[in-house]
């Protein structure tokens, strides 16, 4: 029950940030996204307080959380004053639904743990106890920090580890899939006939969400104390909110998009590069002129680059993954994002804007081809590992479905900002292959292999793309060419 209280508090913390925006983004999104936002705020508070001197740690964390909650609460109270009774009732129902899920998953320990899980749990508990990241150099330069900091919350509430965090994030992610997908389909002009509810659009998006979550490996990972399902959910949220800003012509989605992109990038050490690619495609492809598109990439870089600069100072002989040269590569990629975004949007490279998305796929693809030439043995192992991942029985027919539905989208009416999904997904596949090439043994093809888990990141994004692209009315509103 103690864990349920913690999750309810994180949900409440997130709600204080999602609710003030709900006049534009809607109450269902405010409730569905509250927990992912709350988790991110906890992680940001922990990360910021760890930078403070060790002796100030608990106080710095408390002050940080109080500030975050205070700022959110002030805006929420003013929103609530203007909210009508019916909306308050729906809000209360949404909160009650989350609370029930929190109690259910806290009481039923369904957690799946492997060796990696113990790394996150042990490091998180150690950080929350001693607030000394330098003592954990060997861990922090080998795994992403997000799940470590999530598990650090087990110390203040006195439980061994958080077993409900993963399933609650999964449930919130699926709820967001439905809410955002339904809004997207309606915004694309698939409005229901007068007098009939938008039941068909809702049904299609629900079916797509269930299809996304139905493979055995997705179910197992929803319970797994690990990074990949969380990364998949945050990438979905980032892409979907970027996309909705475009199709709904609403800036209110953009701060969420960049926040979710930060959460995605902190899940694993290599993910900031993926995040920067998605952000670059979004900034280049969107037709919007918003201050968030100017400042968002800078904020993203301002969180990621200093953290990686700090991690590079921790690099030692214990470091297997993030040696200083790789840290430098990630920092360069992320720092280049705001510069590239500025140049292609308003600078001297405006005419290159339509080419950025193809380049985002072309450059990693060229690197894959070069790797085949220079490290053929590794690439052979990587490719054979990836092929065995795609046909692994734990995925069911997911990858066959993604292939066939992906082909179907080529014949469907294009959606605005569609390249964010298609080119972002293709670029990610190339980067996953490159990540395998960077490992001495490539991918080994097992169920819990890193390559197999990383493929998870693409599944919700792909099904969301299909949910908003396919099965739409053949006549009616035509979106803009972008």
């Amino acid at each position, binding site marked *: 029950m103690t864990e349920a209280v913690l999750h309810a508090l994180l949900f409440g913390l997130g709600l204080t940030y999602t609710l003030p925006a709900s006049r534009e983004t809607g109450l269902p999104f405010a409730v569905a996204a509250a927990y992912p936002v709350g988790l991110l705020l906890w992680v940001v508070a922990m990360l910021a307080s760890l930078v403070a001197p060790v002796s100030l740690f608990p106080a710095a964390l408390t002050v940080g959380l109080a500030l975050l909650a205070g700022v959110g609460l002030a805006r929420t109270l003013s929103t609530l004053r203007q909210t009508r009774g019916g909306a308050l009732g729906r809000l209360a129902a949404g909160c009650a639904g989350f609370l029930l899920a929190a109690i259910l998953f806290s009481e039923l320990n369904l957690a799946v743990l492997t060796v990696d899980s113990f790394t996150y*749990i042990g490091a998180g508990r150690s950080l929350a106890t001693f607030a000394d990241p330098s003592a954990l150099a060997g861990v922090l330069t080998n795994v992403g920090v997000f799940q470590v900091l999530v598990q650090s919350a087990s110390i203040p509430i006195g*439980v*061994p*580890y958080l077993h409900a965090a993963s399933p609650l994030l999964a449930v919130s992610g699926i709820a967001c899939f439905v809410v955002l997908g339904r809004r997207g389909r309606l915004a694309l002009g698939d409005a229901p006939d007068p007098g009939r509810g938008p039941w068909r659009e809702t049904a299609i998006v629900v079916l797509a969400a269930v299809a996304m979550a139905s493979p*055995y490996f997705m179910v197992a990972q929803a319970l797994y104390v690990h990074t990949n399902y969380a990364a998949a959910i945050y990438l979905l949220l980032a892409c979907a909110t970027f996309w909705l800003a475009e199709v709904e012509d609403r800036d209110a989605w953009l701060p969420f998009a960049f926040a979710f992109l930060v959460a995605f990038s902190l899940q694993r050490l290599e993910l900031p590069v993926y995040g920067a690619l998605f952000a670059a495609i979004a900034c280049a492809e969107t037709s919007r002129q918003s201050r968030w598109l100017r400042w968002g990439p800078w904020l993203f870089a301002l969180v990621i680059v200093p953290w990686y600069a700090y991690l590079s100072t921790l690099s030692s002989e214990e470091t297997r993954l993030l040696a200083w040269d790789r840290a430098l590569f990630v920092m360069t990629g992320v720092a280049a994002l705001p510069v590239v975004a500025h140049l292609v949007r308003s600078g001297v490279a405006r005419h290159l804007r339509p080419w950025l998305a193809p380049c985002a796929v072309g450059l990693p693809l060229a690197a894959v081809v070069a790797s085949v030439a220079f490290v053929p043995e590794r690439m052979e192992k990587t490719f054979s590992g990836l092929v065995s991942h795609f046909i692994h029985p734990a995925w069911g027919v997911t990858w066959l479905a993604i292939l066939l539905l992906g082909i179907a989208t080529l014949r469907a009416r294009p959606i605005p900002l569609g390249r964010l999904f298609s080119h972002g997904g293709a670029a990610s596949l190339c980067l996953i292959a490159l990540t395998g090439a960077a490992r001495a043994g490539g991918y080994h093809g097992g169920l819990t292999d890193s390559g197999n888990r990383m493929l998870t990141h693409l599944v919700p994004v792909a099904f969301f793309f299909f949910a908003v692209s396919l099965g739409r009315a*053949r006549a009616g509103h035509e979106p803009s060419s972008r």
Partner: protein
Amino acid sequence: MRAWWFPAALCVVILANGLLAFRYVRELGPMATYRITARSDDSLAAAVPARPAAFGTMIRQLLAIQSSLGGAVLMVPTDLSLNATSLQLFARLEIQQERRAPIDPGVADELEAESDPAHLLLAGRRLYVARDLRPPWTAPLHLIEAHGSPRLFVVSGARLDRLGGSVR
């Protein structure tokens, strides 16, 4: 005019994934084979982190779980050699755990065949150090699946090695 093929295709995907998941779990066993039972929670809570090594915390937690499960085998796949301090630490922790259950000889045989382990006698119990098990990491996990035992826990020997001299 609306296309009905898409919702129909999604229904097929859901049905196929459900059936294949059922078949997968029945034939190969669920991933929850690796689940820690609820009984281990108290032991985990009791494991107090020891400054400065989180790895020490982890090892202690794993040993506490072992203890709560009635004396399981701790298998250490390692790509590095264990130094004397690590082994002393390990022996000390082992002594504290009051082992009860015997080691499954089947697991030992298979480990030997799989990875040429060095067997060390520690506090009256054998510790299996399976060297050069990585990659693939899945080898010990397959062993767990083969024996259907949730009592095996795997720790990276590289991590254990870093314990040397750093855990009090």
